[in-house]
């Protein structure tokens, strides 16, 4: 198939969906933020711990509910972010998410794929006072 079929569901995606990494809560995160993709009903909350100088991400945990693409993307992102700087997180875009997932995401499903990235970015922006937002929505 071209786009949209089970090409999207390669082993890596299914593995992260069935066995999500860093799933759960962090007790005292530097910041926590939640977002949703109303089209799919996906919801993801991410807890992030920054290092003392608040430049580098130390740990990430997530929890949520939704389709395999959104949840696998959050799981993979939680691994990828550890060790990255906040600046690098801010600079991430859709292409970085696609590359991380390692599959072609059909246009209709891109919002599922980028939800976790948007939640992490908005969470950081809110923490650093650059944004005022209760919830992230892929529709905004």
């Amino acid at each position, binding site marked *: *198939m071209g786009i*949209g079929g*089970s090409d999207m569901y390669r082993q890596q995606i299914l593995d992260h969906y069935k066995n999500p990494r860093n799933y759960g809560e962090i007790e005292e995160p530097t910041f926590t933020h939640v977002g949703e993709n*109303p089209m*799919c*009903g*996906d919801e993801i909350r991410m807890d992030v711990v920054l290092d003392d100088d608040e430049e580098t991400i130390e740990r990430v945990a997530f929890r949520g*509910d939704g*389709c*395999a693409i959104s949840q696998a993307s959050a799981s993979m992102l939680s691994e990828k972010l550890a060790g990255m700087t906040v600046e690098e997180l801010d600079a991430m875009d859709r292409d970085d998410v696609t590359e991380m997932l390692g599959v072609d995401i059909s246009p209709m499903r891109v919002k599922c794929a980028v939800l976790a990235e948007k939640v992490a970015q908005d969470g950081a922006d809110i923490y650093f006072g650059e944004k005022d937002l209760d919830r992230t929505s892929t529709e905004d």
Partner: protein
Amino acid sequence: MGHSESEALDVERIREDFPILQREFDGEQVVYLDNAATTQTPEPVVETIADYYRTTNANVHRGLHQLSQEASIAYEDAHDRVAEFIGASGEREEIVFTKNTTESENLVAYAWGLNELGPEDEVVLTEMEHHASLVTWQQIAKKTGATCRYIRVEEDGTLDMDHAREIITDDTAMLSVVHVSNTLGTVNPVAELADIAHDHDAYIFVDGAQSVPNRPVDVEAIDADFLAFSGHKMAGPTGIGVLYGKKHLLEEMEPYLYGGMMINKVTFEDSKWNDLPWKFEAGTPVICQGIALAEACDYLDDIGMENIRRHENELAQYTLERLDDEGDVTALGPPAGVERGGLVSFNLDSVHAHDLSSILNDSAVAIRAGDHCTQPLHDKLGVPASARASFYVYNTREEVDKLIEAIDDARQLFA
């Protein structure tokens, strides 16, 4: 098919009218089960569209030349044909061509609601309304100070009629109710609801988007004050919807859109409106689509709306039975055995609806996944989304079997 009840409907013959059904993706023939979203277009309707542009195309109502006269007559007659299709004895004067069901809802909401509703008025809807009606009346209520109330949906997907009788009161100005739910498949008792509304001097607006294409609908038997539906869900083209309104109501209503065609006389100071239904069809109307919709009515009547109703219900019942056998599927709406529209929405325990839809695409099975424009209903049911298989005259049991096989494949992938 092999089932006696369906033999009135020669599906193999019908399928020949829909060449799109022969399309293959990677060697898999498409199984089109997204008919509640839009139906495919049969050859006679496609031919009507092509013929119109090849032989008759002109603007209507104003040209004195031959082409314009022919186009005008065909376009005006199309209104009569659609009126006949839904039992409107007022003929063209009761049939307004719009863009779609949503615009038909908005026409009444703006032209009637905005002028007539006030803070003392209530608009009653159901919890299973499509956004086309729910959002429209919700926003008109905000503008006018009116209150929206919602008839409860029971566990079994039917309306709580006791609740309906309780909240439809003398304060009710409008009852807007979906005839067949596009999510649950429930067939609502619209005639009974019309009686309740009329007992309280309220009007009833029936959303017929999922009923007019699939079953005999007689607006006068229902005693609907307004009824809306879309051409593209009933073998017609996109870009055309219909608003039926009782003549005396349409006469009393102010226009919704202003401009050319909808006027009789214009001075710098004032304008006088054209006759029905043209008063509500400002600007160059949906000429080709209207003529094609009339052809779609002919096509469906040739098959027989009662035959279509039976065929759709049978396919939906068969789908429900097959899904129930799967054990891990939760279907929405009335249980097997209860008459329903030709659609089944469901969720698998282990596979999200969007993942399912993407994976089914591998087997060339086209279904819808999402909230089907009924977000509040999905919220109430506690599911963010559902998968929906919906049928039309050309679908078969074999196609339902392919759907079930594809679901099994998806389940295995996620196991």
